[in-house]
């Protein structure tokens, strides 16, 4: 076929139609016949619909309803799976009682990708292993929105697999861990599951979906690590592990300032408390915890107290693992590095978009032997502020601080120096210059990060580099940090935004990569056993880290069956040494793949060795 022989044509199809259905309609209008399949007759198509009136749906001619689930969503709509004639797609979609109509998608093969590609599916694990789906381990998930009703998190008898849910958002009461939130133990969750509305009965559940989101992050993440597939049809990595979920919240975000300019779901203090809580609940049982949270700023050397705290918890006792998402900031322009010459200057260009309605924040770290002054130059070229070492300077507009520059000497945790710059949203957009002046320079090297801002991200307008883009809590010494690749594409390439090592102090992180692109896993508020309904796809290192958390649970379960204890360092070594190459090419540490693509089979094999 030659391209110049092709012609374009406009087909009249109703606009608000699912693309797969639109394609079926288009083919039918061109005269193409659909072949029958094992579940559909000729010219019939399998669909999933969300309807407000089931009776009206059932009265539709030539529609074969296969399953209906009343009250699937909190809005009391009903989800149905059905077979409908292709010729009726447009008419059915336009019925007032049809809220949504989508073609059934072949998700099963895609769902399998994580457990298949990482060699962690039961039949791919070494012969003679005793992982038993991670049954001896606990998987802890610290995240947002756990749908404990989803069948992937329930046993065959309908009881919950969750040992506990700690909702940090709830008002405190008697028995609240550390005086914070509300604790729901297994007995209480099971009792709620017997009620007509378990979410109301328990006082906890995932929120309604936002218009641009299909399902909550926490349900998806938990399923990748530990779902059992009873609902969706395909299990996660450690399908028999017990689950502890912490709904993380934030305690101390200011009403103004940078904390208010980016969307945040948790904070560092309550993250550390969540890990402490899960380990306390686990007691002597092996425990693997996943953290798919991040932010950009910080020293990136593992010295923050939250990273030190996690390291301490991991080394206090054996059989513990914490996996953390590497972050998704490669190629975004949030990191810059350079060298300030003695008695010279080095410029960073910081671009604030014209439609940015939020404030912006930059954090720059350099070695303790150097001293820099910092000068801020506005987009119009005017120098507006200069702060010498150990000075904090502000720009005021009336009573309001619109710029703050903090030139700190001697961080209390690592002794290095740090410059923080805050630009309030009232300042003009454009290309700001951060000019560093060498006051006393021995080494001169620095790294700078622009803080995360999900509403309006400012970036470096050169020179920037994409190394050192790991998240701020992803640089600890004992944690396993995980990057993301695409298991669906030939050659399993890296996800384009998966963050890059090294740490600022030169350590090789991330440790490994796992599938994180278009990962199909449980979708919250779909309490169904219809495979095509109960899942959704999400992307990011958030989806890669829980695969490794599940593998860590398998390793710990295997070791436990042999009465063997593993330190966090030993477990990390198993995971790293077992990682597969090609990609990445060669044998050296790769800045984004780490040691390579994680292998459940090889990691478990290492744990089987005496």
């Amino acid at each position: 076929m030659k391209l110049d022989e092709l012609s374009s044509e406009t087909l009249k199809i109703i606009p608000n139609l699912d693309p797969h259905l639109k394609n079926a309609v288009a083919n039918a209008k061109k005269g193409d016949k659909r072949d029958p399949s094992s579940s559909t007759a000729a010219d019939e198509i399998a669909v999933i619909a969300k309807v407000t009136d089931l009776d009206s749906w059932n009265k539709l001619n030539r529609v074969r309803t296969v399953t209906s689930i009343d009250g699937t969503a909190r809005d009391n709509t009903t989800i149905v799976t059905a077979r409908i004639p292709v010729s009726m797609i447009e008419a059915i979609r336009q019925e007032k009682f049809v809220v949504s109509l989508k073609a059934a998608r072949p998700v099963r093969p895609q769902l399998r990708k994580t457990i298949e590609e990482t060699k962690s599916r039961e039949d791919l694990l070494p012969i003679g292993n005793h992982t038993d789906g991670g049954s001896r381990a606990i998987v802890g998930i610290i995240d947002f929105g756990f749908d404990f009703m989803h069948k992937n998190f329930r046993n065959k008898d309908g009881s919950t697999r969750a040992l506990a849910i700690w909702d940090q958002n709830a008002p405190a009461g008697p028995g609240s861990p550390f005086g914070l939130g509300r604790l729901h133990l297994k007995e209480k969750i099971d009792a709620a599951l017997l009620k007509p509305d378990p979410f109301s009965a328990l006082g906890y559940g995932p929120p309604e979906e936002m218009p641009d989101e299909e399902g909550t992050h926490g349900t998806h993440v938990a399923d990748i690590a530990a779902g059992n597939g009873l609902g969706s049809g395909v299990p996660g990595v450690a399908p028999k592990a017990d689950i502890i979920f912490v709904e993380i919240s934030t305690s101390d975000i200011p009403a103004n300032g940078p904390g208010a300019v980016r969307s945040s779901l948790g904070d560092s203090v309550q993250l550390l408390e969540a890990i402490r809580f899960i380990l306390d609940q686990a007691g002597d049982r092996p425990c693997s915890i996943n953290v798919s949270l991040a932010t950009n700023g910080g020293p990136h050397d593992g010295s923050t107290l939250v990273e030190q705290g996690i390291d301490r918890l991991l080394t206090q006792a054996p059989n513990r693992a914490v996996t953390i998402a590497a972050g998704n900031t490669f190629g975004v322009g949030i990191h810059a590095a350079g060298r300030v010459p003695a008695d010279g200057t080095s410029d960073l260009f910081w671009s604030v978009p014209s439609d940015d309605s939020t404030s912006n924040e930059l954090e720059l770290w350099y070695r303790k032997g150097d001293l820099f002054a910092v000068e801020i130059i506005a987009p119009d070229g005017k120098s507006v502020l200069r702060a010498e070492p150990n000075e904090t300077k502000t720009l005021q507009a009336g009573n309001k601080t619109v710029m703050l520059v903090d030139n700190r000497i001697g961080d209390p945790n690592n002794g290095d120096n740090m410059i923080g710059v805050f630009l309030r949203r009232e300042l003009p957009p454009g290309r700001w210059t951060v000019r560093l002046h060498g006051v006393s320079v021995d080494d001169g090297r620095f790294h700078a990060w622009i803080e995360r801002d999900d509403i309006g991200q400012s970036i470096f307008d050169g020179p920037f580099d994409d190394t050192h883009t790991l998240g701020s809590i992803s640089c600890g010494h004992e944690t396993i940090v995980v990057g993301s690749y695409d298991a669906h594409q030939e050659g399993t390439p890296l996800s384009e935004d998966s963050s890059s090592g090294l740490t600022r102090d030169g350590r090789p992180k991330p440790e490994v990569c796992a599938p994180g692109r278009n990962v199909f896993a449980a979708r919250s508020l779909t309490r169904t056993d219809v495979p095509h309904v109960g899942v959704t796809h999400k992307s990011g290192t958030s989806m890669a880290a829980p695969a490794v958390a599940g593998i860590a649970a398998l390793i710990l379960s295997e070791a436990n069956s042999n009465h063997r204890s593993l330190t966090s360092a030993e477990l990390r070594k198993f995971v790293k040494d077992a990682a597969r190459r090609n990609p990445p090419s060669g044998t050296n540490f790769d800045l984004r793949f780490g040691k390579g693509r994680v292998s459940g089979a090889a990691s478990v094999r290492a744990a089987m060795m005496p």
Partner: protein
Amino acid sequence: MGISLDNFKKVEFTGTARPEPISADRTLTAIFKVTEADYVPPKVHVRARIDSMMFTGSFVAGDLWELESDQRVISLAISRPLGLSE
């Protein structure tokens, strides 16, 4: 009188170089690192123990000067916001 966090050398930079001072009676939560096992600074309420030298706790911002001058406090990290890695 308001408290400016950038005045305190023992406070880990939080990523929230709050441009406006915070109220002295505002309750803050932080991770504490101390020099002496089981030491808890006066007026700090311990929430979770990490080990003998590290814990999470709450206090009011007005006590920051006292914490800054406390020789047995190495550093404290006021909560830093985190987002999803999606």
